[in-house]
């Protein structure tokens, strides 16, 4: 039997694609600044504080003030830096983040318009490929700054990447086997009966853990490590270049949450009429984002060797086992 590797999707008019892209872009870039405030406010609440509440009503204009400050700063570059790569450093992750937004499914095909950027037949592979490009940005940025802290941060990023990318892929493989497709849209369709978080709970856990490492969030914010490495690979960056690294961090959180919501939490599925689908997707995504913030407020940064141990000795065998068991079950049933 030959399994279909992916759905082929369907063709849309170019202008629809353009409008879709603009809408997704606008929505995500509308959410991002709010996310920064929400994170700071929530972290404050977790620590018996209020968080930012001075700029605008409830501090909602805080990101505007932050961006204004960052933009007005001097675009400083150390003398030892490699100019072209130094500038390319923050750009690549932004590009990768925006690219990976394209495959997050916000809804099914409605009135001839698919409510997603594009239904790539290789869905998950695309996510991994683009996610790896983001790491090139970190590595280039760290290496080209000509600073030891940046280089150390970049090396930590690289080590972290290879420790977690494999487990992350294996964690998603279970879902891919159960749905028989790589396309995120088909995977969401396959969750009509039961969300994949139930049969793939282990996979979900591993994916989220690896997601924390992928997005450089606590407890795996080793590459940044504000306390030890003074922001790691970003040490030499200032102004909006620094800002775009931060922006990417939040964008990656959204992307990882989106992928997790689509693959494990039933994507856009939820009660109510079909036009609520994108809202459900957004709710699930933001729920996962809140988990990210909650974890950040709770856990301290792991030590470097602990991180490696967790990645290679715990997550990788667990993920492999998960894939094996899933494979056997899929074949048997």
């Amino acid at each position, binding site marked *: 039997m030959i399994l279909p590797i992916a759905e082929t999707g369907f063709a849309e008019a170019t202008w629809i694609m353009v409008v879709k892209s603009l809408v997704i872009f606008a929505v995500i870039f509308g959410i991002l600044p709010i996310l920064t405030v929400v994170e700071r406010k*929530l972290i*404050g*609440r*977790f*620590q*018996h*504080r*209020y968080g930012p509440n001075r700029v605008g009503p409830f501090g909602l204009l805080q990101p505007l003030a932050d961006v204004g400050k960052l933009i007005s700063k001097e675009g400083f570059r150390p003398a030892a830096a490699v100019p072209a790569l130094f500038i390319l450093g923050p750009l690549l992750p932004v590009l990768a983040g925006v690219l990976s937004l394209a495959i997050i499914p916000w809804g099914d095909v409605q009135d001839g318009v698919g409510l997603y950027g594009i239904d790539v037949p290789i869905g998950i592979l695309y996510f991994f490929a683009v996610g790896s490009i983001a790491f090139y940005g970190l590595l280039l940025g760290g290496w080209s700054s000509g600073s030891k802290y940046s280089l150390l941060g970049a090396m930590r990023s690289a080590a972290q990447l290879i420790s977690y990318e494999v487990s992350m892929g294996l964690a998603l493989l279970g879902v891919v086997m159960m749905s028989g497709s790589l396309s995120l849209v088909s995977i969401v369709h396959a969750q009509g009966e039961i969300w994949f978080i139930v049969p793939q709970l282990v996979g979900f856990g591993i994916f989220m853990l690896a997601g924390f490492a992928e997005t450089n969030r606590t407890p795996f914010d080793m590459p940044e490590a504000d306390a030890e490495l003074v922001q790691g690979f970003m040490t030499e960056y200032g102004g909006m270049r620094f800002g775009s690294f931060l922006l990417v961090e939040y964008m990656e959180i959204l992307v990882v949450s989106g992928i997790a919501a689509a693959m494990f939490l039933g994507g856009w599925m939820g009660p109510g009429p079909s036009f609520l689908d994108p809202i459900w997707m957004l709710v699930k995504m933001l729920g996962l984002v809140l988990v990210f913030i*909650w*974890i950040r*407020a*709770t*856990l301290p940064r792991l030590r470097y060797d*602990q991180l490696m*141990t967790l990645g290679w000795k*715990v997550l990788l065998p667990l993920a492999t086992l998960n894939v094996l068991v899933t494979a056997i079950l899929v074949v048997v049933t």
Partner: protein
Amino acid sequence: MSADPKAASYLDSIEVVEVQRGPEPGGARGAYRAFGETLRGLKTTMARLIEGPLTIEYPEEKTPVYPRFRGRHKLHKFEDTGLEKCVGCSLCAAACPADCIRVVAAENIPGERVSAGERYAAVYEINLSRCIFCGYCEIACPFDAITMGHDYEMADYDRQNLIFTKEMLLAEPIERTPLKMEGE
């Protein structure tokens, strides 16, 4: 053992200190424990979130002070006669370790008495940029004419403004500081 008998007895007398160590990390049990502790941590932070912020947003909200808080000084008058309690004895100035009080006394003229005693303070100045708020002036005063108030917001851009004259010290201070209630 050392040949020195003194050192030997010292070594014998050392008690064996047992170092308390945490459980060894690693293994399935370690992973299980780490997972449990993580959940406990998450519970702890969530409880903090539910409790709500404890911040006192200072310029708008003020921390209540204790009744015996030593803030800016106050000079007092008798409530019935309206005469000043201060008789210009300069004991406060003598007691002041920072030497920030200046008192110049004058004789009371019958008919237009200023204070209840024979003399009164013609000049009474406290240099608050020097004052250390020790409260010795309050203790030294035989007539309870000077007491420490509850005002603590006295920052200024000009040192001149920190020399408080008699009129300023006699005036009712703007009561901006909330007082701690009993049991608070």
